[in-house]
């Protein structure tokens, strides 16, 4: 039987008027890298704050390391590493002082758990005397990760650690997470970036306080079950309108410089579409069939949800 580190059952959370989390179920097993993927305002931070015992759940059962988040919050707090969405270190302390401080309040020392943070710390060590407030965004996140790790927690809970970080640092950051996972630490991470989902063992796609799908990234993609084409022309905005007006086309989503479209029938006569678009004065038309990615799945699920609501 699998050992669950985090168990969430029918979790609801309401603020005065808004229902931020509307009955969420998921569990994270030991050693797993679990991703909560969703746009801003989906309820990710609320779920994380409940898991870290910072706020009360309105309804439902939540257990972390088999401790109840309401009754046994003290036990949970000593055994988790939490990195809030906002940079939450002391900006007027240096890198080293921050780390020493967090090591101390968790009753440990940097030396004791140095092997855990070593890979990350060596990258910021050249700046160890610099004030944390003066670090770059990526450096700050690395330092925050070090501070969350310094007491060798059983679970790491990271709330959007890569938001606002440049692409290279993001990649490095995820490499670190994967290395930590290999050391046996369970990691729960949230992100609004769909491309990061592929790096998780399992992902939950969350939207408007509800989880739409939980599975491995591969299975989520497989569940897309439709053929997908990328279309491009010189007038992208007009292209959206024109494609949407064609009744054999099911959905159109902009995706970078391309539009991703699905059809009612999964059969596309590319030449026919090109000529139809040329008639509407589009030039440099490109069409190609592509593999779906997580974001496509997300858009599709979101769309389905809207349909069922309306």
């Amino acid at each position: 039987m699998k050992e669950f580190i985090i168990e969430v059952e029918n979790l609801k959370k309401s603020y005065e008027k808004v229902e931020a989390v509307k009955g969420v179920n998921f569990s994270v097993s030991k050693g797993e890298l679990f991703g909560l993927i969703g746009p801003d305002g989906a309820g990710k931070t609320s779920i994380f704050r409940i898991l870290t015992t910072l706020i009360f759940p309105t309804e439902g059962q939540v257990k972390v390391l088999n401790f109840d988040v309401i009754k046994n919050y003290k036990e949970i707090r000593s055994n988790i590493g939490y990195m809030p969405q906002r940079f939450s270190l002391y900006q007027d302390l240096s890198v080293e002082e921050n780390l020493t401080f967090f090591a101390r309040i968790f009753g440990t020392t940097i030396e004791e758990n140095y092997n855990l943070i070593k890979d990350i710390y060596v990258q910021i060590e050249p700046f160890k005397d610099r004030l944390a407030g003066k670090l770059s965004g990526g450096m700050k996140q690395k330092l925050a990760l070090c501070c969350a790790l310094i007491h060798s927690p059983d679970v790491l809970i990271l709330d959007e650690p890569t938001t606002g970080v440049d692409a290279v640092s993001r990649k490095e950051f995820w490499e670190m997470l994967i290395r930590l996972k290999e050391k046996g630490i369970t990691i729960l991470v949230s992100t609004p970036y769909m491309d990061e989902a592929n790096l998780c063992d399992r992902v939950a796609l969350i939207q408007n306080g509800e989880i739409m799908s939980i599975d491995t990234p591969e299975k989520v993609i497989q569940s897309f079950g439709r053929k997908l084409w990328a279309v491009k022309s010189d007038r992208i905005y007009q292209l959206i309108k024109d494609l949407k007006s064609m009744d054999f086309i099911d959905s159109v989503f902009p995706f970078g410089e391309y539009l991703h479209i699905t059809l009612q029938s999964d059969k596309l006569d590319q030449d026919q579409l090109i000529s139809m678009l040329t008639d509407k004065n589009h030039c440099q038309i490109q069409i190609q069939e592509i593999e779906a990615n997580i974001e496509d799945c997300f858009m599709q699920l979101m769309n389905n949800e809207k349909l069922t609501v309306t």
Partner: protein
Amino acid sequence: MNRFIGFVKKEFHHIFRDYRTMLILFGMPIAQILIFGYVVSNEITDVNIAIFDKSKDNITQEITNKITSSGFFILHDNLNSDQEIEKAFKRGIVREVIVFEPNFAEKLKRDGKAGIQIIADASDANTANIVSNYTKAIINSYVKNELFAQGLPYEIIPEVRMLYNDELKGVYMFVPGTMALILMLVSAMMTSISIAREKELGTMEVLLVSPLKPLPIVIGKVIPYMVLSFINAVVIIALSYFVFGMPIQGNLIFLLAETLLFIFMALSLGILISTASNSQMVAMFISMFALMLPTMLLSGFIFPIENMPKILQWLSSIMPAKYFIIIIKNIMIKGSGIGIVWKETLILVGMTVFFLGLSIKKFKVRLE
């Protein structure tokens, strides 16, 4: 314990790295005590006085000479009737009128005592007080140095009358008052801001998700400010003693102990404020309006409590600063011990316990 020391160390780092905090902590108290000191009790020079000598004998002449040659006073006018006294004050130049009773020297020889009336314009209360005290001092030293030295056991009784505000009190008001104000400000405002800052910057979130319990967090926040406030208090006392000649009649250690009590009270008030505010801005405004203004206006620091309307008098009795000022005045000026000020001390202890208890109860272990 190690955790706790780490926390306190971090707190000191915050204070010493922020030049604004340092400025408020150390610049402000010194500036304030100097400003208040010089504004409120400026040494007097060249004060215009008038003399109404009903006796005109050799002794009144000698005293008049002593007064006018002291350097503090300028003889503006010699008066000849009681009506002229009022007129002289109304013109606004003369600050003080000295009246010798008729047959002054004769009475002194016959009865061994004679009276001098010192009338001061108390519409400017502080000046009036200082001026009349200076005059009294000169007369007393005359009696001591000239008459006693000649073996004449005479007594001259200066009778002081304050015109326009005869309830005037508090020469040395400014030192206890400023001390109360500064300690309140530094202790309460700085702690409340420093806790609110952790909330505002999100570091509280991380602190809460650590094994650190509320009590060590609160105490760890308080200790650095306690140390710094105490240093401040010592600086203020030293300044007022050496620069302004404020006496310290009572026991210095007792004085410092009472000061420490007040600091502790202010700190617990600061923690209470911080539990109610989520940002530095809010904490600062609450401290300003709920602490600084009432401390200045209602504690008897600037305006005598006795002259206030009844409602404000009741309000002033919940101002901790009021009791501290009473205690400090008693110790410094009158040299009282715990026997005299035990009631006020007890009230301060009570307030401290109340604020501290309330804030520990209100301190949230969660974000909501």
